[in-house]
């Protein structure tokens, strides 16, 4: 449907995929500044021109926010940066952040039609740079036509889910007041993610924009401690809960109590706290200079840890992962960045215990993991070879096995139900319809069954983010467990829609 006659229809072949430049590793290893260099709009436009504008936009479909990617690529191509930024904000309140922290190679860029031998469009880089440019040029959301409708909503947690919710509510004329126990917005964006991935200045700038829109942040307020949840419930038309999940998983590893064993999040937050002088008392700064560091785990958090350690001038930094490289769950690009920066990867090792000398970490005991033969699709299956015990020496072990929810106590006051693992339950669970259907004996009532499930979904599941307690909505990591930033934003926005609709239907009743 391209009608612009000047288009080069084979641009996707003629112009190779080009990711934006990085600072040289020798240079970037010394500081916590972002590693990607801003790209000129013309360069981005050229990359954007590679887009085929597919009839089925797989990128948009794969994106949890369903960003209008092909459309803003086209605007980028025509160097209409403000229009592109405006369009990005229609589906995403934090494009400059998603552009930095999203694992595009698992989402939009992976789904890109061109990711089949041509090289995907550099969607992430374009998203980041275009929004940066627009913001630098003073882009602001145009809200002149929004009429405040007298409703207000309390949001607990100023992380991506909370922001996602607050922004959409504000655009819809609903007052959003966001509470957070930390001194800055962003949640893990601010406190968890190291500065070389996301410059904290970006978050501050974003806070300004959000506040200009009329979002009110009440920081350093911890619900349940500084303020009673019941008060919020009473004072606001609805409450959205998005307190995240901060509880680190320890994997039950023997020897984990020894000095020199750190948990990923504690380490990362301590680091940010030190650099930004947030004065968070709970998080201690750990200087790993000249230490031999092993990080256990293979996700994005593990990468944040190894790369932070490198920057602290650790003597050696090793990432140790149970499966092989292809099975790593995080962004490929981060693994590449880490390698460039001097991180060593040890694959297929299962830690058994942490060894100590004088109450301090000395080594980690591991066994080899052997691939199982019938590995099919997805993550490969591996089996520990118990005859292969070995020791790997280290001064510091950082455990990056992920986090689990840390549901606040007051949830039960309002009878907000939780999953067994502590996650908040929202929406209606559609049951195991799929399993039922796949059983051939059940094919007979196949259609009927699905029809009724669909019907049920339509009627009862119309507010996917509503908790079991009416008036309370929840989303983000506290519902999902540790998950992507972009999913948290998506939850927040869905919650906003749910709230808007529920307030509407209240009105009409």
């Amino acid at each position, binding site marked *: *449907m*391209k*009608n612009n006659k000047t288009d080069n*229809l*084979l641009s*996707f*072949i003629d112009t190779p995929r080009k990711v934006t430049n990085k600072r040289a590793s020798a240079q970037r290893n010394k500081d916590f500044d972002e590693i990607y260099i801003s790209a000129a709009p013309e360069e981005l436009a050229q990359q954007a021109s590679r887009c*085929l*504008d*597919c*009839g*089925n*936009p*797989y990128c*948009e*479909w*794969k994106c949890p926010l*369903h960003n*209008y990617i092909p*459309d803003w690529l086209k605007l980028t191509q025509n160097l209409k940066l403000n*229009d592109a930024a405006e369009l990005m904000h*229609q589906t995403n309140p934090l494009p400059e952040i998603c552009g930095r922290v999203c694992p595009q190679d698992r989402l939009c860029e992976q*789904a890109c*039609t*061109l990711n*089949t*031998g*041509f090289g995907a469009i550099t969607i992430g880089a374009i998203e980041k740079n275009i929004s940066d440019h627009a913001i630098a040029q003073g882009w602001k959301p145009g809200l002149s*036509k*929004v*009429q405040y409708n007298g409703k207000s909503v309390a949001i607990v947690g100023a992380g991506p889910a909370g922001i996602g919710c607050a922004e959409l509510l504000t*655009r*819809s*004329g609903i007052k959003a007041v966001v509470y957070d126990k930390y001194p800055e917005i962003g949640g893990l964006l601010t406190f968890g993610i190291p500065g070389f991935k996301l410059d904290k200045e970006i978050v501050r700038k974003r806070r300004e924009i959000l506040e200009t829109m009329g979002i009110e942040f009440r920081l350093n307020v911890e619900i349940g401690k500084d303020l009673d949840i019941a008060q919020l419930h009473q004072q606001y038309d609805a409450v959205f809960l998005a307190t995240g999940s901060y509880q680190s998983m320890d994997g039950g590893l023997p020897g984990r109590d020894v000095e020199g064993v750190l948990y990923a999040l504690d380490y990362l937050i301590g680091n940010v706290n030190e650099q930004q002088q947030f004065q968070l008392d709970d998080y201690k700064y750990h200087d790993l200079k000249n230490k031999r560091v092993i990080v256990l785990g293979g996700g994005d958090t593990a990468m944040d840890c190894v790369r932070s350690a490198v920057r602290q001038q650790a003597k050696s930094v090793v990432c140790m992962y149970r499966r092989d490289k292809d099975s790593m769950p995080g962004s490929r690009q981060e693994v590449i960045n880490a390698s460039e920066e001097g991180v060593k990867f040890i694959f297929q090792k299962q830690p058994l215990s942490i060894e100590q000398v004088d109450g301090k970490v000395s080594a980690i005991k591991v066994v080899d993991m052997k691939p199982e033969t019938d590995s099919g699709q997805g993550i490969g299956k591996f089996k520990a070879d118990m005859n292969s015990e070995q020791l790997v020496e280290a001064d510091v072990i950082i455990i990056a096995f992920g986090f689990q929810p840390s549901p606040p106590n007051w949830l039960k006051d309002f009878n907000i139900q939780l999953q067994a693992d502590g996650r908040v339950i929202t929406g209606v669970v559609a049951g195991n319809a799929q399993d039922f*259907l*796949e059983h051939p004996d059940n*094919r*007979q009532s*196949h*259609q009927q069954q*699905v*029809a009724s499930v*669909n*019907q049920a979904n*339509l009627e009862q599941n119309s507010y996917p983010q509503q908790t079991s307690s009416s008036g309370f909505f929840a989303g983000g990591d506290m519902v999902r467990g540790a998950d992507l930033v972009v999913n948290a934003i998506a939850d927040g926005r869905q919650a906003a829609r749910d709230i808007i609709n529920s307030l509407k239907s209240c009105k009409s009743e």
Partner: protein
Amino acid sequence: MGLYHSSQAKDSCGFGLIAQLDGKPAQRLIKTAITALIRMTHRGSVAIDGKTGDGCGISIQLSKPYFRELAKHLGFSLGHRFAIGQIFLNPDPIKAARCRQILEDELTKETISVSGWRKVPIDKDVCGKDALKTLPNIEQVFVTAPPGWQRYDLERRLFMARRRAAERVTDDDYYYVASLSSLMIVYKGLVIPKNLSTFYPELAHPKMKSAICLFHQRFSTNTLPLWKYAQPFRFLAHNGEINTISANRSWSVARKSKFFTPLLPDLPSLQQLVNQSGSDSSSLDNMLEVLLAGGMDIFRALRLLIPPAWANRSAMDPDLRAFYEFNSMHMEPWDGPAGIVMTNGEKIACNIDRNGLRPARYVITKDRVLTVASEIGVWDYKEENVIEKGRIGPGEMLAADVSSGKIWRSGKIDDMLKIRHPYLAWLRENTIRLRSNVDLEKKGAQYYIEENIEKLPIFSHLFGVSVEEKEQVIKVIANDAQEGTFSMGDDTPFAVLSQKSRSLYDYFRQQFAQVTNPPIDSLREKSVMSLETCFGREHNIFQETNGLSYRVIISAPVLNYAKLQQLKSLDQTYYQFQSLSINYSIDANLNTALTAVCDRAVELVKNGCVILQLTDRDINESTMPIHASLATGAVHQRLIKEGLRCDVNLIVETATVRDPHHFAVLIGVGATAIYPYLALQIINQLSLEGQLVDELITARKNYLKGINKGLLKILSKMGISTIGSYRGACLFEIVGLDHAVSELCFPAMPCRIGGATFKDLHNDVLVSVANAWGSDLPIERSGILKFVYGGEYHCYNPDVVTQLQLAVTTGLYSDYQKFADTVNQRPISTLRDLMRLKLADNSSKSEKIELDEIESKESLYKRFDSAGMSIGALSPEAHEALAVAMNRLGGRSNSGEGGEDPSRFNTEKNSRIKQVASGRFGVNAKYLVNADVLQIKIAQGAKPGEGGQLPGNKVTLEIAKLRNSVPGVTLISPPPHHDIYSIEDIAQLIFDLKQVNPSALISVKLVSGPGVGTIAAGVAKAHADLITVSGYDGGTAASPLTSVKYAGTPWEIGLSEVHQALIENGLRDRVCLQVDGGLKTGLDVIKGAILGADSFGFGTGPMVALGCKYLRICHLNNCATGIATQNKNLRENHYHGLPEKVMNYFSFVAEETQQWLQQLGIKSLNELIGRTDLLQLSQGTSDKQNHLQLQVILDAAKRPSNGACHYMGLRNPCFDKGVLNQQILKAFKNRLNVVEVFELEATIHNYDRSVGAALAGFLASEDVLDTTDNSVILKLNFLGIAGQSFGAWNYPGMQLRLEGDANDYVGKGMSGGRISIFSPENISYVPSRSTIIGNTCLYGASGGELYVAGQAGERFAVRNSGATAVVEGIGDHGCEYMTGGIVLILGPVGENFGAGMTGGIALVLDLDEHFSNQCNMEHIQVCSMVEVMSNRVLAASLNISRTTIVQLLEAQILHTSSRWSKKVLQNLDNYIDYFMLVIPKETLSRQTQALPVRLVNEK
């Protein structure tokens, strides 16, 4: 009641007239006429019993001596002036008596005395079974005029009496007055021509004499025609179809109050002027008789009803143009393929439609007998007695008066008409032509921007303009002046099924021409099209006065600001302007609101309003709009009912119109003109945003231009050429509106399955109202064109595509099951989704069928075809992979329309189905014989009624080779098959194909639309073996956007309609019925079978299996999956399709089908066909869905209690055995091994059709003889008159010589050899000035030579891609779409020469120095031969020189002994200056040097 109604039958036929110009009545003439009818038996249809036909008849002068004597004999007292009525009466004597009485009453009222009734002697034995069932009691009534009446007094009063009687007899289907006149009598019946005179023995009575005989042989699309529909009618016989019939009928009602003539003062007392149902020809006859009875003469009447194209013919004589323009103001043309012969007993006339879509050839012999007929050679006159022969060309008329012996040729008639009144002066004086005014337009635009731009979001929400529509529709048109191109078809739900709020226009499906009439190419044949629109009160057509010219004219019905302002400020005494809001209170109800608008409109018109503007612009928070289509339709209908419609013009000022379809709907339901204010305001905004290429006013102009272009396309799709005949014609089918809605607003529109009620529509708008005023939501991204998350559902959404691709890659049924579940459980998107299977009760295990009892996969594969996709659209790799997969499975792949590499024949890469499409690319004998099925692609689901274009950049060396063209040359597929303009033409093409490849099944691909059942029955009667019904959701590689979105209907409706029609006509067992369109899973197969399908076509499914990702960029040649591209890099490096993936897919589908069969408790698909009891209509998920009435579909598809209900594997052989072809073939086979030169002599007649084709097919299929190297020569010499398709698909080595004439389609598809046609020696006419071959010769030829020592008809060398031809004159549209070959024309050339000609060369001897005016300069340049030769570089690069002409002339002389050619050659030095060279622009642009050639008349 089902979907199919036999009343929709369409017909076409052979027709003609014979007249003794000196008026001497003779019995011999009647006999000759009957012979002529017999000679055209093949143009009608003959049932298997050899007796039943669709009707034929003759109309002759009333033989007064015969009837006087008869009256005497019967004891009737006949007065001086008497008339005879030929009356069909009910076989029931009581009912018959009643009708007799009524007619007598009415005659008596007129003081005409009835002398008596006589039973007409007939011989029933010659009637077939079906004909006997409906045989009426045929009687003649003898009546006498009171003394003193003149001849025409009697005729007029007979007319009124007859009409009044007919209005009184409403309940007797038999009663019919074939004729009632003192001048003419009609004998007609449901018999075949050879039995006509046996059936009516008195026709052979020696005293039965006439100097005029009109004759007609009918081909109806249904097997149970009625006696009264046989032709001729009372005045005329018509071959063709009036496409505009619904508009003509409804305007005849609207205009009745305007008809006044002192000759028939009581005319207004008639209820209606023309019949509102039944045969289109009979309605035309009705109108003609009103005009004639009212005192109009034959010439003006015929020219008024069927005018030639004049609006875009700047070269036309201004006085003549004025005559047509003047007359066009008060009657819209009756348009469509039409050959008309008519007589009033004294004058005779033959008239051909503006585009020459029906053939008419005439011969005048020395005994002053004039014969006009569809074919030449319909009786055996002696060639030496011929003094003149010719054809009646497009828009031409031939007339004669047997009382004076005078003949009028077309020009003479025009000359006579144009000087009757000072038309030109009248028009100049009184007619105002509105033109656009840039300053005014600028002012208007500026004003809107300033006053209203901030309201745009409100209007966008309220009227549903999405971002997508703004970007992809409005912006594109504003930039490019034409709508965007789209590919991959429409995979969204119909509006009524959608969960989204959709435009009401989405409920309207454009009707389109298929088989019974041709679509027009509105681009290449622009000269016949017109959008001209008139304002002002209509006046009485019978009085030609200057008052009638008080009119305001605009060139197109889409208004801009300037034109609207001008219309508003006209003199209010004549053009009173009123505006009427169509917005209503949110609390009111839609139905009442509509009635109120209608009431108000009537009031305004009664008070003198002449320009009534309906507007939805004054919207506010408490009101909501009535959709413009509803308001326009309802007001139009009401005004007609009140007799006021022709006093007023309806302007619609609405926000709802954005794309061409929207405009077409409003005009189709009655709007005069439209002002699209919101679309223009959006363009203003786009301009402010800097999104437009041009400045604002140009962009606005572009937009209107694009809309007009789109309108022309929509008109031409239905074969209609003027907007006047489209206005109010309701040429849409409504899918998904409640009957109450359509009853009130568009009663003439088919609306078969109910749907959204007034209440539902009201509720839909309420949602938009809430969005518009309540919030600041961003403008919706509707996702109607392309998938957007949260937008409209798409059946091939990313989930579906990725799941299918995973399944065919892993080969796991469990993966396929996930795909099938996603599809089978999708939100309701198609009609079949509302039909649930009733599965067998599993509890009764005893009856459970084991899997091995169920129809095997192998057997199912035979029912699976891949849909036609051309190589060109697909890469060769993908095309071959599909063929390999289907061949390995035992299914069939379809070549598509682009030819096929012969090296694939006889290998597993061969496509078993070969398509014959309108472009005829690569369709030669060799191609045709290497097929098991030959599919005539009438229409494509994604764009029925349209042609296509393969842009030059996609024409690679390979493609060019396959399509017999040159790389880089644009290839155009015309909208129609130029050899199928009507149903008897497709019978001819099927006959041609069966002659060339007797073993192939002939398939015809139709698109679901109203009346498709009728067409399918006709196609089956034309001896097709296989019929494919495509749904609207078929794919395409490139189509205009609105074509994909708005044409065609769901196959569920079309399939069951066709199934029902075939059963009712007793044809079901011999026709294999295939469904195609959006089929994805086994469940689709099951439901398709239940609704009537034997076989299944899959297009997109197997493509996705090959790797297609539904990118919708097929038209750009950059398909990233290497499937829909010719780009080498993409094909070599990025194409990963394997036949195995396609095989996996079909294996899965077959397996799923088996599983469903098992659960249904049915063993085979044959047992399932028509088992609608196994489907249950299910509850929908919206009110609209629940208001659909789908039972009608199930009822139509239902298994009949007896008779065949599915395909039984029978063949459907042609009635004509092709005797001469068989003789030739036999003779050749007998001598096969003996000689290298085979020679044969034979006489030939017009009924010997497709002569040579059988031999060509034999040569192409057998390896016995290699004729391609010219070493073997087969000489076939004929004497006489060849039937249609002489030398079709002529094969190298075959040399056909014909001494005599030939009919249409000479050398169709010729790939080699030679055809020469010339007149005998001893003749008295000048051959070079006579038409000796018919229309559409060399259609799709790719090689060989044709020499004709005489002139050819219309469309000579259309789509020629390689043949060399010499001819001495041609008709209109010569060398249309030509891409190769050389054509030398040594005489006059008709209009529109070289339209769409992108290759080859034409040389024209232009003695009148008029040629360049006749050319369509879009693709060609014309230069003088001398100048080209003086430019050596150019001449060399074109390989053209004086020698070229000399050689061609020498060949012409050698093969035809043409005297004219000899003369030209001998005097070449004198003639050379007059030779013009026609070169396609593309050819010139490929030349490297810039060439300083002066080009003639470059427009």
